[in-house]
């Protein structure tokens, strides 16, 4: 009998992870974003002051257990942030609730991670599965980049989002690295078929902050799509392919600034990596200011230790480099309406600002 494995939500990247697991003959239980029901379950079971991603993951696994899934996979961290303890805590809470689902980490306690030992896949299919996941991650990176560009310019609002969903569904169905590669090459052309306005110059906004909130549509109240439909071109600085490339020193698709480069950029404002993606947030803000971005949006779960601790620094950069930053903290009470209102106000100000600078340019020229 095949055991099933619940996979944590990594936004659209879950597609890649799930197909790797499936290709090993393990049935994957997954979705691309936490659903509201899972969130409610997580909220009820988790300690009150833990951060939003913890509750989301816990709820997701409770739902998986309700569905009879036997195993769950939880991301591990070796950093300084609370995430390090999340797997253990989730396991304990689930056990206290009398649930039988087992939570596996990706950590090592010997040569093989315990998870791999449990399922014990043969070596060659395992390597193939990893390669498949890497290829798919590259595709998702490309999808994300194309979506951000097209969504801000589309003539018929909603077309890009629909195409994105369609592509992800199709991608989930492809099972060999070779076919994924072929699919990858087609993507650009498919996005080009969407009718876009050539004459507009959309506001460019960089999205920085904590990973789960950046990537999970429920946790961030569908921030990316909301902004896209307002006609803003966003750059989400969390691309998993690039991130993995940084961690393992191999290049997976799109290149990102390496840790070393980021540290160099951030140095005048922050000399320590802090933890999580705090230094990335600082470095990207400086980087975007120099690249002429219109603004930044910094998102994190309320109470996130690394991200909150760098906010005073971001404020200073914002002032000195003249780049507006909007700070959004998300918790389980955040309402989509509140987020939209704040975004609209922010965007209004940015538009005014751009008009003013253009005006000054003309006067000066």
């Amino acid at each position, binding site marked *: 009998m095949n055991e099933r494995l619940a996979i944590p939500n990594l936004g659209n990247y879950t597609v890649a992870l799930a197909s790797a697991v499936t290709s090993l003959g393990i049935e994957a239980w997954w979705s691309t974003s936490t659903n509201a029901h899972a969130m409610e379950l997580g909220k009820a079971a988790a*300690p009150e*002051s*833990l*951060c939003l991603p913890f509750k989301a993951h816990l709820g997701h696994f409770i739902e998986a257990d309700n569905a009879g899934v036997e195993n769950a996979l939880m991301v591990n961290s070796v*950093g*300084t*942030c*609370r995430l*390090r*303890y999340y797997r*253990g*805590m989730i396991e*304990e809470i689930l056990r*206290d609730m009398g649930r039988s689902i087992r939570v596996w980490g990706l950590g090592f306690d010997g040569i093989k991670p315990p998870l791999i030992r449990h399922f014990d896949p043969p070596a060659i299919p395992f390597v193939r599965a990893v390669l498949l996941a890497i290829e798919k991650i590259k595709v998702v990176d490309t999808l994300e980049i194309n979506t951000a560009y097209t969504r801000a310019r589309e003539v018929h609002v909603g077309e890009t989002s629909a195409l994105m969903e369609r592509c992800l569904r199709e991608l989930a169905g492809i099972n060999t690295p070779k076919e994924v590669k072929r699919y990858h090459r087609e993507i650009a052309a498919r996005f080009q078929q969407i009718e876009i306005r050539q004459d507009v110059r959309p506001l460019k906004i960089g999205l920085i902050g904590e990973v789960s909130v950046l990537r999970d549509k429920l946790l961030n109240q569908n921030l990316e799509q909301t902004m896209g439909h307002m006609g803003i071109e966003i750059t989400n600085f969390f691309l998993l392919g690039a991130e993995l490339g940084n961690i393992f020193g191999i290049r997976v698709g799109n290149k990102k600034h390496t840790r070393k480069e980021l540290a160099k950029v951030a140095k005048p*404002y*922050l*000399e*320590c*990596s*802090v*933890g*999580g993606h*705090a230094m990335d947030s600082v470095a990207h803000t400086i980087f975007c200011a120099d690249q002429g971005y219109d603004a930044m949006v910094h998102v994190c779960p*309320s*109470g*996130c*230790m*690394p991200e*909150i*601790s*760098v*906010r*005073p*620094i971001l*404020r*200073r950069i914002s002032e000195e480099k003249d780049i507006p930053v909007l700070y959004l*903290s998300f918790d389980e009470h955040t309402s989509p309406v509140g987020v939209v209102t704040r975004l609209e106000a922010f965007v209004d100000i940015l538009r005014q600002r751009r008009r003013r600078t253009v005006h000054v340019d003309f006067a000066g020229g």
Partner: protein
Amino acid sequence: MSLRYKTIGIPRAFYFHSFPGLFETFFQLLGIETVISPPSDKHILQAATNVCEAEHCLPNKLFDGHVLSIADRVDAVLVPRVISMTRGYIACPRFGALPEATRAWLRETPQVLTFDINETKEPLQRSLRRLAVKLGCSSREGKFAATKAIEAMNHRLTDLRSTNISSGSEPEAPLFLVLGHSYTLHDKFIATPILQKLRSMKVGFEVMSFDDSLAPPKGTPRDILWCTFAKMYNRLTSPGASLYAGVIQLTTFNCGCDSMMMERFRRLCRKRDVPYMILMVDEHTGRAGIDTRLEAFVDSISWREAAGRNGDQE
């Protein structure tokens, strides 16, 4: 040879309590005047809210308030970057960005004097020595001052350990363990009302102290990497822990590490059948609420103990 700064300000928050007496002694030996901010109170917190990030934890807000209270009297404020206080362990991630964050809201004056405290990488004495060189002293002077300062700190820590235990009025009075960070347990705003109440109730209590003897021995799996929590965990699991009638966990609003670890300690205490109470302090905490909760906790434990004793006799 001239020193870089004439006066250095030391905020009475965070690491000031973790390294008692260290910085004052060190700078005095180098011939630099030190200004220590006054003990925390409502005004310091009030002042902090104007400059401080809204989502910071209470100790961090207090820290900003302390910096502000001495900012116009000193040439530089000391904000060390505490990465690790015990070899092999780490401190709260908030400390990593603390010097830069302070510099970010302080603007140009006073300057922020910072150095890394990272026991995992190098012993405290060497870090201090390099700080002395940075300040314009010779390496030898630095070494001397560092050694003396560390001695003074250890002396202070030993003294603290004896004052941390307050015995009750009668020998049978229950003994409580008060858990928290050194910067919450020794802060006047956060802990003093609670400890005063305990004292006035005439119960015995021991305030958590963080000496190195509590650090887990080498080779044990490092499940908890935060050094203060590893020490608290050790204290709770040590054989002596059965002496405590109850554990009072002192925590502050929005403390990330506490939110994780309290849950673990709560489970641990439940397993060992030790009553565990969490007292959360925030900016608005009224004393009455804390008094009531402490009284209720102490009362119920005395009854429990009495019931246990009667049960034994039967």
